[in-house]
C-alpha cells in the first residue's frame, strides 16, 4: 500500500478509537483525558497499532493541541472575573499553591530529579484541571451551589499563575542558572504586564485587527496571530504555549466569546491528539516502577486539595458539607499537569513522563468520582451533624 493510504488508515483508526473511548468516558461520567492517555499507551511501538506513518502528523498536531489548549484558556478570562477572584480569594490561592506544590517538589527531590524536574512535578501536583472540574460541576448541577464560586475562582487564579510559572519553568528546564531564571521571571512579568496593557489600551485596535463578520476570517486571523506569537515566544527561549496563552488573555471580551466558540472544536480535536501523543511517548513498562510513587502522590494530592477547598469555601461562609464538596471538586488533575510534564519531558527529564501519566490517569478518574460522592463522604467524615451546617444561610457570603 502507498504511504498516504497507510497514513489515512492509521489516523482513521486513531480517531474512531478515540470517539469510542470518549463515549465510554461520558457514559461513566468521567473525563476523556485518562482514556486518551491510555489509548496513547496502547498504540505505538509494540502496541495494537504502530502509527508509524502517522507519527509526524501526531507530533505536530500535539504541539498545536497545546497551543490551542492555552489559547482557549486565555480566552476564558475576563478582567472582571480575574479581579473578583483576586479580591476575594487571593489568600486561598496562596494556600492552594503552598499546600499542593509542596508534595510534588518533595517527591521530585526524593526521586532525585534535576531542579527543573522538581519544579515541573510541583506544578503537576499543584494545578487542578479547570476543564474537568468545570465540566463535572456543571454535569452534577452544582454550579449554583454556594461553594462553587470559591472553586471556580481558585481555578482562575491557578490558571493565571500559569502565565508566570510556565516561563520560569521553561528557563529552569533549559538549564539556566539563578540569574537566567531571574531574567525569565522578569521577562514573564514584563510580558504579562505588556499584554494586560495591550488588552487595556489597545483592545479596540486588536479587535479591529481580528474581527470580521465572516467566521472563517476570524478563525484564520486568530490562528495566524496565535501561531506567530507562539513561534516568536519559542524563538526567544520562552515557551510557545505561554505566547498562545497571552494572546488569549489579550483578546477583548466580546471577540473572545466568539473566538472560543469557533476554536473549541479545533481545540478538542488537537488536544485529544496531544494526550495520545503524550501516552505514545511513554513506554508502558517504565510506568510500573512509578506506580507506587504516583499513587502516594495521588492520595496526598486528594488530601491537600480537600484542605484547600475546605479553606476556600469556609472563607466564603459555606457549611461543612459544602467545604468537602469544594475540596473533592478540586482534586481532579488533567490537561495542564500533562502540559507541564510535557515541557519537562521534551527538556530531557524523561522520568517525569511515566510518573505524570500515572498520576493524571489516577486523579482524572478519582477526582470526578469523589466529587460525585462528596455528600456521602462528607457524611462519613463529619459524623455528628454540626449545628453550623444549618446556619449556613445566615453566614452566607456578603
Amino acid at each position, binding site marked *: 500500500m502507498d504511504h498516504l493510504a497507510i497514513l489515512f488508515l492509521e489516523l482513521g483508526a486513531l480517531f474512531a478509537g478515540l470517539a469510542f473511548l470518549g463515549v465510554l468516558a461520558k457514559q461513566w461520567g468521567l473525563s476523556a483525558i485518562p482514556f486518551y492517555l491510555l489509548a496513547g499507551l496502547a498504540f505505538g511501538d509494540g502496541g495494537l497499532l504502530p502509527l508509524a506513518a502517522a507519527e509526524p502528523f501526531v507530533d505536530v498536531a500535539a504541539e498545536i493541541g497545546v497551543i490551542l489548549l492555552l489559547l482557549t484558556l486565555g480566552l476564558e478570562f475576563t478582567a472582571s472575573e480575574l479581579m473578583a477572584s483576586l479580591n476575594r480569594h487571593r489568600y486561598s490561592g496562596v494556600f492552594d499553591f503552598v499546600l499542593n506544590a509542596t508534595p510534588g517538589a518533595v517527591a521530585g527531590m526524593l526521586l532525585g530529579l534535576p531542579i527543573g524536574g522538581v519544579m515541573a512535578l510541583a506544578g503537576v501536583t499543584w494545578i487542578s484541571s479547570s476543564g474537568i472540574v468545570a465540566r463535572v460541576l456543571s454535569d452534577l448541577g452544582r454550579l449554583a451551589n454556594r461553594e462553587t464560586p470559591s472553586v471556580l475562582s481558585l481555578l482562575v487564579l491557578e490558571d493565571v499563575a500559569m502565565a508566570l510559572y510556565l516561563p520560569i519553568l521553561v528557563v529552569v528546564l533549559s538549564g539556566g542558572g539563578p540569574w537566567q531564571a531571574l531574567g525569565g521571571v522578569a521577562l514573564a512579568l514584563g510580558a504579562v504586564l505588556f499584554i494586560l496593557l495591550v488588552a487595556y489600551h489597545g483592545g479596540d485596535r486588536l479587535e479591529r485587527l481580528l474581527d470580521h463578520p465572516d467566521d472563517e476570517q476570524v478563525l484564520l486571523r486568530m490562528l495566524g496571530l496565535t501561531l506567530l506569537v507562539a513561534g516568536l515566544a519559542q524563538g526567544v527561549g520562552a515557551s510557545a504555549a505561554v505566547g498562545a496563552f497571552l494572546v488569549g488573555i489579550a483578546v477583548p471580551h466580546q471577540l473572545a466569546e466568539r473566538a472560543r466558540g469557533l476554536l473549541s472544536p479545533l481545540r478538542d480535536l488537537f488536544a485529544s491528539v496531544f494526550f495520545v501523543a503524550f501516552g505514545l511517548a511513554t513506554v508502558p513498562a517504565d510506568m510500573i516502577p512509578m506506580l507506587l510513587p504516583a499513587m502516594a502522590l495521588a492520595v496526598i494530592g486528594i488530601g491537600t486539595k480537600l484542605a484547600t477547598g475546605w479553606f476556600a469555601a469556609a472563607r466564603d461562609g459555606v457549611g461543612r458539607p*459544602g467545604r468537602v464538596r469544594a475540596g473533592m471538586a478540586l482534586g481532579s488533575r488533567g490537561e495542564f499537569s500533562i502540559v507541564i510534564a510535557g515541557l519537562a519531558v521534551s527538556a530531557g527529564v524523561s522520568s517525569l513522563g511515566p510518573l505524570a501519566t500515572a498520576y493524571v490517569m489516577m486523579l482524572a478518574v478519582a477526582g470526578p468520582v469523589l466529587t460525585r460522592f462528596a455528600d456521602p463522604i462528607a457524611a462519613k467524615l463529619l459524623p455528628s451533624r454540626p449545628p453550623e451546617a444549618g446556619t449556613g*444561610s445566615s453566614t452566607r457570603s456578603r
Partner: protein
Amino acid sequence: MNSTSTPQVVETILPGVGVKYELSTRSGTPLSLVVNREGGSVLVAYDAEDPDRASLTVPLDDDESEALAGLLNGASMVHRVGEASELPGISTQRLRIDPHAPFDGLTLADTRARTETGASIVAIVRGVEVITSPEPSQGIRGGDVLVVVGTERGIDKLREILWHGPKRANPAAD
C-alpha cells in the same frame, strides 16, 4: 403589598460560567438565578438541610426565561401600576371594572379610550391571566383590571367614561 424593604439580590461572579443572582426571599427560602455567559439560565432552589446545596435546578432557554419573566411580570404588574412612571407627565394606573358596570360585556373599542382621552389600555388583568396589548375587539368583563398609560387628565377622563358608560350621539360633550 408587604414591602418593608427592597428585596436583596446578591450578585456573584462565577468565573468561566456566568453570574449568579441570589435573592433572599421574605419567606426564608433563598432562590438563585445563574445566567450563563453563553446564553440560557438556570433557576435554582436550595436544600433545606444543607442550604449551600442546590436541590432543584431548572435549566431555561432564553425564550423560556422570557416566558417566565412575562408571567412573573404580569402577576406583579397588578401591584406595581400606580407607582410613579419613568416618563414625566405620563403615568400608569389600573382601573377596575366592577361587575354590572356599564362596560361589563362590551369591548375595548366601545370605550373609545384612545380617541376620547389619548390614554392607552396596554393590558387587561383578569384573575391570574394577563392580556397584553389587547385588540380593540377585546371584550371587557366585570372584575377585569385595565392597565392604562396616559396623562393624568386623560386617565381621569377615561375613568369617568368607564363610570358613566359609552358615549352615544354626543361626541362634543365634556
